[in-house]
């Protein structure tokens, strides 16, 4: 049996009176890519933000149920939020490097986790490893002092992933990471995801069904806050059990 990185149990989430997640129950397998698909507003991004508790920043959010990570409920009152977010990192929809140098972006995580050392060799080596891990080193090795916001969007998104890997997460949450990119860049990011899968558990939210089909091992389909169906990607796309899933993947909805 596969190991699970994240497990939700009777998860409900409310924005004020509006219920955005309804009794969501599923598990994310370790070192696999799990994708969540569904039409806009179905709650898939909200679900993603449950895992690193970014929803906490929204006013009036109420969550019931459990989300287990490393055998602990992350919504237990004694959760160390900073540690949790360090272990469960997030890649955002729009590439969002800071408007500072490429190098400074990479070492941002070091600074906030007090791992920054003033040694030039250490920092250079560090930048090299980080950029290699996202397949950017060859392109950027002579441009470390250039402004990160001048890179192409694909490079920016990869840099954001590098910035995230620096803090040594275990789970990567990706919130439509390719929606701002063209098809070729998208393919490159997907290639990178397959590379990252060896060491990280990945959960990706996407409105792009083909992408879910290409990259993920398991897929969940969400509609109006409910997880309608969850299972192996192949099965879900070829032989969906639920009529609503079938409607969506055959293009009759959304």
């Amino acid at each position: 049996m596969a190991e699970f990185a994240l497990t939700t149990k009777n998860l409900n989430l409310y924005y004020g009176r509006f219920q955005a997640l309804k009794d969501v129950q599923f598990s994310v397998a370790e070192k696999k890519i799990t994708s969540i698909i569904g039409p806009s507003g179905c709650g898939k991004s909200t679900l993603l933000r449950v895992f690193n508790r970014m929803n906490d920043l929204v006013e009036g959010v109420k969550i019931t149920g459990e989300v287990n990570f490393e055998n602990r409920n992350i919504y237990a009152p004694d959760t160390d939020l900073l540690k949790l977010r360090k272990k469960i990192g997030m890649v955002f929809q729009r590439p969002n490097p800071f408007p500072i140098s490429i190098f400074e972006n990479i070492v941002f995580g070091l600074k906030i986790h007090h791992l920054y050392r003033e040694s030039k060799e250490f920092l250079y080596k560090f930048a090299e490893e980080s950029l290699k891990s996202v397949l950017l080193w060859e392109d950027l090795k002579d441009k470390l002092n250039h402004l990160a916001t001048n890179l192409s969007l694909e490079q920016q998104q990869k840099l954001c992933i590098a910035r995230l890997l620096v803090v040594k997460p275990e789970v990567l949450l990706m919130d439509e990471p390719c929606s701002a990119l063209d098809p070729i860049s998208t393919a490159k990011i997907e290639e990178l995801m397959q590379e990252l899968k060896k060491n990280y558990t990945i959960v990706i939210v996407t409105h792009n069904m083909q992408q879910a089909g290409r990259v993920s091992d398991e897929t969940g389909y969400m509609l109006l806050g409910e997880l309608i169906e969850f299972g192996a990607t192949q099965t879900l796309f070829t032989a969906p059990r639920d009529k609503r899933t079938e409607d969506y993947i055959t293009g009759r909805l959304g």
Partner: protein
Amino acid sequence: MKFPPPLAQKIAFFVLFVMTLFVVLPVLFVMFLIVKNGIGAISWEFLTAMPKQGMRAGGILPAIVGTFYLVAGAILFALPLGLFAAIYLSEYSQDTWLNRAIRLAIINIAGVPSVVFGLFGFALFVSFFKFGASILSGSLTLGIMILPVIITSSREAIDAVPGAFREVSLSLGATKLQTIRHAVLPHALPGILTGTILGIGRAAGETAPILFTVAAFYLPRLPQSIFDQAMALPYHLYVLSTQVPNVDVKIRYGTAFVLLVIVLLMNLIAITIRSHFRSKKKW
């Protein structure tokens, strides 16, 4: 009376242009007048010597130095206070009646006439705290006066930093304080600096707040400590123009010219910093 549209267009354009001209002309005229009459007075001696013969000759060095001290003191006091207040108001404060009252108070402080600040500074710093008429009292008074400028511009700069920066930082496991320190303030810095420098420009040119708190009528020596009185350019100008008979027009205009140049220089620096950073930032 009805005009055909193209003519109405032209008339409207002309009227708006003339109105704009009316706004700019007096400023240009004042500057022209001061430059034309003042530039002749500028000499090495004028800038670096003490005033002589009851201010009718010599230089204005103590006034320049005094203004410099006052402005530096005001910034030293107002920048940290204003910046911290701005951080609190933008990043921490909830929408409660107390915070709304604080925000309203800040807006109101900006509208208080400067002579009221002068009297307030006199009552609080000179009399109550017994700092006497001194650079300290004057700096604190000017500092309070420019607080709203610094708070408002710092808040605008902080609020203009995209929420995505905070989100990324928090999602990487940073604390709120680290997020402010590393992901917000560096990107708000140009705006904060601009506000500060505009504040400096304002503080350098004000007469009323220093009138009762620091300004010396005639003190032909440099201040020795923050408890000394000092001369300052705006007050010196007022004295030369109204209190001392038979002052050469050249000296008056020269003093005004120096003050004008200092204030314009400050604004120029502010604009340069802003445009420099603006060309760099992309969001």
